[in-house]
């Protein structure tokens, strides 16, 4: 794109008729015209590069903004929220002077194009968001969705994604403690690779992305800038894949986790010495994003000399330098007298650091190249005043038909033998099978603070060695439920993550979300999106858990076919003493199994309907958020007071899935009975929400029952931990060894 003479601001003003490739950069005609209007002239090539990436769907949220506002408008009162939506990540007060920051993001499209690097750099990006808040990253989680487990392309994408997440996260020394792996044909051409991270800091260490104080220096540090990822934000993240277009492989970034590890340590050391006024990581849109956001969030302007940016490739044009998404870079604003010390710390860690500019007392972002001014903009117009679209949305015509196709009417098993056969099929199905082949490729021990990791209901990390204070995180989402009813589906995702956190004994505090949907230009998709946000915002309000930030990923579709609407919800919780945590595994024979909550005939979107009938129809389970809250309180109290020794939330796969997992993890079987008022099939496979199964020591039975009775939570005794089989009295009995073979053999057989 370089041209002669240099396309300076002066040159642009003098040559109004020069045609710029705005369409190739992903801008629409009216958007380009708006840029011209803002500037009062045509943009320079460099300015166009900045506007095009910053106004892309990925960076500007132009299609989603009008809906996302609800998270703020309906935000519940919460004392826990220290930093809300809009920063790199939200920050939550977890007590004892500690603050926790967490966020989930998507790296879907790059991971399909180049699974290893796409997934690896997804981890890298979310981790830099956490560091940029001032926190030490302490754990990562990875909610993943792939096409059909037995599809040949899944064998290309999944192992690459898993190796990329492991290769990057393991090398950073971050325990991977949670996430999900879901298979569904709807993700065949568009896998969902979401990545979440948690960081911990003291309250006083919170840092924000803003450049204040005229004369302060802007320091770019980390990797050199190269040609990778150019246009990634505007082209890769914001357009549907189309086989007819040329390969977009070069737009995927390449990660170097070693460099990122150094970046983490050197940034944290600089924070410790209080050398940093403002900080921003370089992710999507690279320097364009970092400079315009730092400048627009601060009090003044900024002047940057692009010639000073260390390059990996000296032939890069200024436009390319501004758009490059080279990984492992950060931008800090540092007072002049502290610059030397900052550079010293970078040198200690062998991190390249360069002063590339300074904060000015004006209100313009000015960028120079070879002595010429190539950018002169109001940074707010780049970072915050992007276009906002009120996209049309409409309930799809097929929604009624889908909901009318009632899963409760599907043929049910009629004998004990048939029940047993379906149980074995369920626990062996790819979605319900053990994912240890995947999770064993992630380090979950590093840092020495991991209390719980997958396949536990939530991951849990100790954050204070003296007091035992810890945090828990769970991520959940069920695209099948959301397809049947996006409003309810989004609420179910929140309810499940909330329940998962409470099941381990932690109190849910706050929410981050990653909203994965199809093309916003399709009114049906836009309706799903609007409904899901409305559902999630309403539910967060009712449960008192504010949304602290997150990410929207649109255009997840292949041709005309959109993925299931897939809101993935992460809930963060706190536990006073991790020694009180409740694990999934059965601990001792003789303990009594109690089913908490109400079980109804709810099979719409269920794992049973998928595995046995390959069916998706009807309505998802009902949501009762007050019940979820009560169940959560009971689980937390029972954990704190030592009334339960294990607990497992009930979700996809229903009770039998939970019991089998607890039995296999504990190496102890269970004898179950069908309680009055239920039939065996409904007991085993229903996916009614607001339920958990707990193991109560006999000595605690009276106390536990009294508590549930007094609080009004239905608690039904359904059996006992015993033996080396899972038995449903009068119906069937399966040895644990058979269940283990079924449950643990599937994934290695498909992927190893």
């Amino acid at each position, binding site marked *: 794109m370089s041209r002669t003479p240099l396309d300076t601001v002066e040159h642009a003003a003098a040559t109004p008729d020069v045609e710029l490739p705005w369409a190739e950069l992903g801008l629409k005609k009216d958007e380009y015209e708006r840029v011209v209007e803002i500037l009062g002239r045509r943009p320079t090539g460099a300015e166009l590069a900045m506007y095009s990436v910053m106004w892309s769907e990925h960076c500007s949220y132009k299609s989603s903004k009008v809906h996302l506002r609800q998270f703020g408008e309906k935000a519940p009162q919460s004392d826990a929220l220290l930093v809300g939506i809009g920063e790199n990540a939200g920050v939550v007060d977890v007590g004892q002077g500690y603050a926790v920051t967490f966020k989930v993001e998507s790296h879907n499209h790059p991971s399909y194009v180049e699974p290893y690097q796409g997934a690896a750099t997804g981890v890298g990006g979310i981790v830099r968001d956490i560091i940029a808040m001032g926190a030490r990253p302490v754990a990562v989680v990875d909610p993943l969705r792939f096409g059909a487990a037995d599809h040949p392309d899944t064998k290309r994408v999944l192992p690459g994604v898993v*190796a990329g997440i*492991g*290769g990057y996260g*393991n*090398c*950073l*020394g971050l325990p991977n403690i949670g996430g999900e792996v879901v298979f569904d044909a709807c993700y065949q051409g568009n896998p969902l690779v979401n990545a979440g991270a948690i960081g911990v800091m003291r309250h006083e260490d919170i840092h924000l992305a803003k450049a204040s104080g005229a004369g302060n220096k802007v320091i770019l540090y980390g990797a050199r800038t190269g040609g990778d990822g150019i246009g990634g934000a505007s082209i890769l993240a914001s357009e549907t894949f189309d086989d007819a277009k040329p390969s977009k492989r070069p737009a995927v970034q390449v990660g*170097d*986790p*070693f*460099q990122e*590890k*150094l970046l983490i340590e050197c940034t944290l050391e600089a924070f410790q010495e209080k050398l940093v006024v403002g900080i921003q990581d370089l992710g999507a849109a690279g320097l364009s994003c970092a400079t315009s956001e730092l400048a627009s969030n601060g009090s003044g302007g900024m002047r940057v000399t692009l010639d000073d940016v260390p390059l990996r490739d000296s032939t890069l044009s200024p436009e390319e330098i501004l758009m490059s998404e080279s990984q492992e870079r950060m931008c800090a604003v540092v007072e002049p007298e502290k610059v030397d010390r900052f550079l010293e710390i970078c040198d200690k*860690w*062998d991190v390249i650091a360069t002063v590339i500019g300074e904060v000015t007392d004006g209100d313009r972002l000015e960028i120079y190249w070879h002595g010429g001014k190539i950018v002169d903009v109001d940074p707010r117009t780049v970072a915050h005043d992007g276009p906002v679209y009120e996209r049309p949305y409409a309930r799809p015509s097929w929604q009624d038909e889908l909901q009318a196709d009632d899963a409760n009417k599907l043929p049910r098993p009629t004998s004990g033998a048939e029940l047993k056969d379906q149980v074995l099929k369920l626990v062996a199905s790819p979605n319900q099978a053990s994912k240890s082949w995947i*999770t*064993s*490729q*992630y*380090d*979950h*021990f*590093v*840092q*020495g*603070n*991991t*209390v719980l990791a997958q396949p536990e209901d939530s991951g849990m990390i*100790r954050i204070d*060695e003296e007091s035992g204070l810890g945090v828990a995180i769970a991520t959940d989402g069920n695209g099948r439920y959301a397809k049947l009813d996006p409003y309810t589906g989004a609420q179910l995702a929140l309810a499940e993550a909330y329940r998962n956190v409470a099941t381990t004994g932690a109190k849910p505090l706050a929410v981050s979300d990653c909203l994965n949907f199809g093309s916003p230009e399709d009114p049906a998709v836009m309706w799903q999106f609007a409904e899901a946000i409305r559902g999630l915002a309403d539910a967060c309000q009712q449960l008192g858990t504010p949304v602290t930030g997150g990410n929207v990923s649109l255009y997840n579709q292949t041709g005309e076919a959109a993925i299931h609407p897939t809101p993935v919800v992460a809930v963060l919780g706190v536990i006073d003493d*991790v*020694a009180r*945590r409740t694990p999934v595994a059965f601990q001792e024979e003789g303990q009594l199994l109690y089913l908490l909550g109400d079980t109804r005939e709810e099979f719409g979107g269920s794992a049973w309907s998928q595995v046995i009938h390959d069916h998706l129809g009807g309505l998802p389970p009902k949501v009762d958020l007050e019940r979820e809250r009560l169940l959560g309180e009971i689980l937390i109290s029972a954990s704190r007071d030592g009334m339960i020794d294990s607990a497992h939330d009930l979700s996809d796969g229903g009770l039998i899935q939970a019991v089998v997992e607890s039995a296999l993890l504990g190496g102890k079987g269970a004898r179950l009975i069908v309680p009055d008022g239920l039939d065996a099939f409904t007991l085993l496979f229903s996916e009614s929400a607001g339920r958990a199964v707990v193991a109560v020591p006999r000595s605690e039975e009276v106390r536990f029952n009294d508590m549930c009775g007094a609080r009004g939570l239905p608690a039904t005794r359904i059996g006992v931990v015993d033996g080396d089989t899972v038995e449903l009295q009068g119906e069937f009995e399966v040895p644990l060894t058979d269940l283990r073979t079924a449950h643990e053999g599937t994934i290695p057989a498909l992927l*190893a």
Partner: protein
Amino acid sequence: MTARIGVVTFPGSLDDRDTQRAIRLAGAEPVALWHKDKDLHQVDAVVLCGGFSYGDYLRAGAIARFSPVMEPLLEQAKAGLPVLGICNGFQILTEAHLLPGTMLRNDHLHFICRDQKLRVENAETAWTTDYSAGQEIHIPLKNNDGQYVADAYTLDKLEAEGRVAFRYLDFNPNGSQRDIAGITNEAGNVVGLMPHPEHAVEPLIGSGRTDGLPFFTSILKKLVNA
């Protein structure tokens, strides 16, 4: 008095703070050493911890082996300074030729993280006296390049001299020859192993077992009684 045990941080070291914690829990005093240090600050023993020093570029441990701190370490290890290499630390020790053999990529070509069963074969090294020979323990293992290999002569010699310190039991997680998980030098002061004892020092945390603590209590006793 207690013992001062150094933990070296290379660029890319990951388990340095974990190892310091394990040393503290055993009752000794951890001392942070930097890879550019030219002396060992009078520590009584050194642990080279796990991680990806220099990103495992070239070969795991191959670059770290040339860090300034390795010069005094080599000299003093040869003179009897107790040195423990865990995972990447073990790889560095073989690259530095303080221990024989080398580590290749896991035979199944995947990173593997699991709670691994081991048998203590030699309970007489500086780092293993609080175990008994033949004792079976569980220690977390997590590596990409953990396949221990050496020529037959070296392997036979290690076996004959009782220098196989730990062996994988029930499941060989990386294809290591003769199920070797860890070895010692002739003098018994330098020990290297792939599993991570520092991740098994507290109930509830990590594997939830404390099977790794005896590494650190062994060395403490030896140093304090010396």
